[in-house]
């Protein structure tokens, strides 16, 4: 009996959020399936799978930043600016492969701008990334003249082949997302840089005394977060084919909601990608279910806001409150 108790405590310590999220996910699927005939269909699941990819990729980047103890709120602005610039390149006749390279590189560069603001100018990460986000968004409006941009009709098909194509009913975008998770997982668990992300987030003073460059690690984390914004932009173009300059403005907190829901601690030093992906799935299923049930947008906002509060509250109860 003692052994069982101990094992349960151990399980909860290591996998608590993952277990409760899996249960929540199952409950939500049962709830929505029983209230709407349109929910539990392969078409809708493919839809969910596609919809979660952009959020999922950016949530993985956001997790990396949070492990170091930083919140990056500029990701959607990075997505918007990179997306707008990518469409303009496409319309100027640049090949899709090069546009992809551009999206990754410019995501990294904008992440580096965040890194500069946070580590060199020493602006607090939240304030820093809200501000750079505003700057990036401003450039997006400037670049697009506040209009919706669309891909060149002649090349659009090649983008759609990726964004809307699927293998065995699973969207390609979903595989791209899995690839991003795999790369970030290997980085976190099996490289020195990954180890140092956890170290700096857990105890920056001890890390400094161990000879770790805090600036490099924080800079790197924000660059990864930026790159995932760039990947998000490419996925959006290939799925939708167009970009509104205000894209993601209303969804600003979605990524953070998903990550916090996944049990990633705000205090830094810990975080599991399995939590992140489950947090993303729960959030997307809730949104999808509410939309299918025809629940009005304002209710959806109220639910989303409440989820963040509940997620953070649970996080604090587990000892992971904010620490700066």
């Amino acid at each position, binding site marked *: 009996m003692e052994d069982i108790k101990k094992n349960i405590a151990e399980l909860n310590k290591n996998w608590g959020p993952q277990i409760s999220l899996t249960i929540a996910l199952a409950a939500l699927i049962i709830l929505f399936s029983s209230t709407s005939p349109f929910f539990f269909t392969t078409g809708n699941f493919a839809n969910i799978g596609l919809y979660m990819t952009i959020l999922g990729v950016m949530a993985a980047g956001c997790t990396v930043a949070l492990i170091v103890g930083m919140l990056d709120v500029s990701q959607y602005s990075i997505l918007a600016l990179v997306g707008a610039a990518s469409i303009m390149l496409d319309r100027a006749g640049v090949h899709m492969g090069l546009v992809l390279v551009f999206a990754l590189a410019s995501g990294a560069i904008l992440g580096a701008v965040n890194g500069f603001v946070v580590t060199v100018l020493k602006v607090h990460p939240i304030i820093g990334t809200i501000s750079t986000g505003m700057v990036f968004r401003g450039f997006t409006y400037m670049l697009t003249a506040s209009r919706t941009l669309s891909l060149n009709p002649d090349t659009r098909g090649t983008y759609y082949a990726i964004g809307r194509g699927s293998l065995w009913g699973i969207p390609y975008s979903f595989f791209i997302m899995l690839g991003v998770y795999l790369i970030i997982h290997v980085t976190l668990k099996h490289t020195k840089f990954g180890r140092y992300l956890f*170290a700096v987030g857990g*105890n920056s*003073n*001890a*890390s400094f005394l161990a000879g*770790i460059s805090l600036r490099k690690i924080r800079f790197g984390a924000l660059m990864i977060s930026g790159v995932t914004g760039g990947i998000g932009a490419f996925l959006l173009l290939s799925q939708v084919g167009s970009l509104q300059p205000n894209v993601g403005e209303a969804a600003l907190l979605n990524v953070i909601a998903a990550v916090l829901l996944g049990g990633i601690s705000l205090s830094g*030093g810990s975080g599991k990608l399995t939590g992140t992906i489950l947090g993303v799935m729960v959030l997307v299923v809730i949104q999808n279910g509410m939309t299918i049930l025809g629940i009005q947008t304002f209710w959806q906002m109220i639910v989303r806001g409440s989820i963040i509060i509940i997620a953070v509250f649970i996080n604090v109860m587990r000892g992971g409150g904010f620490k700066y």
Partner: protein
Amino acid sequence: MKKDVILSLRNITKRFGALVALDDVSLDLYRNEVLALVGDNGAGKSTLIKIISGALIQNKGEIYLNGKKVDFATPVEAKRAGIETVYQDLALVDTLNVANNLFLGREEQVSLLGGTFKFLKHRLMEKKAQEILDTLGIKIPNIREQVKYLSGGQRQSVAVAKAAAFGKNIIILDEPTAALAVKEVGHILDLVKKCKQKGISIIIITHNLEHAFMVADRFAVLRVGKKVGERIAKDTDIDEIVKLITGGTFVVSKKGERKIKADSM
């Protein structure tokens, strides 16, 4: 027999603005000894060890390690020279496990594709970590456990083990027994003795003179930035050290308590 000096501090002065934290302090550390550095709050103990460990740079004075002059600009340089410091509360990363902490900043890696990719050697580091703990007789149930789930004594043991494993020449312990349970204090002090047996020289800072007397070979006493005395442990006692620390003398109060009467300074 002339003792072998491993670390020699010559006329160290450190100022913070108008405040003189250390005033012309000279001190030798002998090979394979435990030196207790004692003094009241603000006496300059922490400043002195920070200078030795490269976290601060002195305004005046020289440091010689094995007879060679050294200038440590960063803690990393001091570490490279074989000086490891265990700071209070700053030694370990709570969210990393025991093995990760022991190898933090010294990770072993395997190179793939001619160094394009480098990955951590988890198994090797865990094996070595276990060996480090075993040689010092430290029992941690699971070295994959995050440090935050360990007791205060276990954490301190891990921190000291880390210093002992990599400090070739000197380890400096800042209040290693502060905030520990009585039983755990015994473990840590045993650990200090074991480190000494391994041939390491140790500087220990503590407010607890009883703990100091249990391990120290020698005492160096600082008072308001000056070295006011050095004593061989077996030739002195707590009363004399307290006198040196405070610059006062003991009086026995009516209730039989020992109180310190300050000299008119």
